[in-house]
């Protein structure tokens, strides 16, 4: 009985506590930099597309909301011909970001993407691409990978040794 009265008193005192509600549209909540919100495609520091259209994100996606088509430019550099994310399906799990070998696909601290019509939630490549490197400023996949593309031969990447001459290995 006494404990009930004490409970009543403590609950009454909550009147003077600080509210935990964030008055949303006027007052924005703090979102951590690692928040998993709207998905973007980033550019490398040289301004080229980072995405190499490896399909790993589409394979990792548990709800199959990513669709893309790989193609190559004249220099042999792979890129997606189209890249489409259906945000009405996306669950913002971040698996695509984890799967991405080139830091191209990233989740950002932004969730304000409501639409009145469902088709507007399908984002094409031009909607996804941002003009910058996102969370990994210095990284350029093509400069560190050993893949040969136009203007960069084998062994010319950063921290990469010259290719071994196979004939020199013969006994």
């Amino acid at each position, binding site marked *: 009985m006494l404990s009930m009265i004490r409970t*009543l008193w403590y609950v*009454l005192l909550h009147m003077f506590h600080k509210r935990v509600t964030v008055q949303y549209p006027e007052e924005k909540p703090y979102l951590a930099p690692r928040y998993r919100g709207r998905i973007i495609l980033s550019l490398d520091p040289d301004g080229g597309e980072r995405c190499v259209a490896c399909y790993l994100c589409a394979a990792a996606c548990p709800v199959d909301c990513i669709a893309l088509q790989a193609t190559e430019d004249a220099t042999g550099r792979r890129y997606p011909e189209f890249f489409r994310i259906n945000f009405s399906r996306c669950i913002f799990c971040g698996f695509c970001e984890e799967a991405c070998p080139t830091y191209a696909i990233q989740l950002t601290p932004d969730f304000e993407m409501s639409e009145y019509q469902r088709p507007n939630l399908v984002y094409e490549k031009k909607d996804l691409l941002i003009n910058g490197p996102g969370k990994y400023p210095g990284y350029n996949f093509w400069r560190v990978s050993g893949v040969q593309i136009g203007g960069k031969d084998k062994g010319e990447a950063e921290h990469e040794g010259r290719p071994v001459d196979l004939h020199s290995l013969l006994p």
Partner: protein
Amino acid sequence: MTSPYPIVAIIGILVVALTLAAGLIWVERRLLALWQDRYGPNRVGPFGLLQVLADMIKIFFKEDWIPPFADKVVFIVAPAVIVVTVLMSFAVLPIAPGIIISDLNVGLLFVLGMSSLGVYSVVLAGWSSDNKYALLGGLRAAAQMMSYEVFMGLALMGVVLLAGSFNLTEIVAAQRHVWFVVPQFLGFILFLIAGVAETRRLPFDLPEAESELIAGFHSEYSGMKFGMFFVGEYLGVILISCLITILFFGGWLGPVLPPVVWFLIKMMFFICFFILLRAALPRPRFDQLMSWGWKVMLPLALANLLVTGAVALAWRS
């Protein structure tokens, strides 16, 4: 001293009671939020006051569906019964000198009788729904009402002894020197607990316990029929608050401010207390509820009546 213009009093009290009952939706949500460190509805209109209007429009336009397996006539009548019985009780409540519909000389008995009739609404709703959860809710309501009604009446007999009348106006008048909450403190506590159980409010909302019986007796109700149960419940809260004010806290009596204002202040205080009870206390188990009613509250009420009777007898002779 019945009002000189009864029709004005009837319409006035009806309008005020129903408006208050609707407004309580907002009050309750805001207060619960206040005690849970939230804001509650504060977007629709000033302070979220138009939330009431939005809720009402919503509930009026909801589909009013009667399940095909239900006992149709009883199903429709049940929600009306609770509102009617509670509203009938308002007829004998003296809000202020002259503001009363019918100054009945057995006013208190009338109120007790009407609140007993109110239980039919819940029981019939549970029965006619032809649904086991609804039936369980109805059964619980019947058992709860039976056991809490007994000492509710007995707890009030102390007040009647002191005032020497069943007439609510005379009971208020008898408190001119000291409010009955002082000599009848135990009676007040007992009546408060019985009142909460009578209106089926938390922590005594076992008939509708949403976590075990889904919604108990009104599981099958939708639309405005469900709304009627809600209005009935809020009207019941207002009624019990009015009764506590009249019986234990001197009704309209108070210095400086006009009588009606005093009455409303006291009434609002107890309505807020009801909501605080809801915010703070957990629901007891059903057997705990019953054994509390019969083994603790009833003997206490009887002892209270005995002592009050003895003191009153000794003092008068």
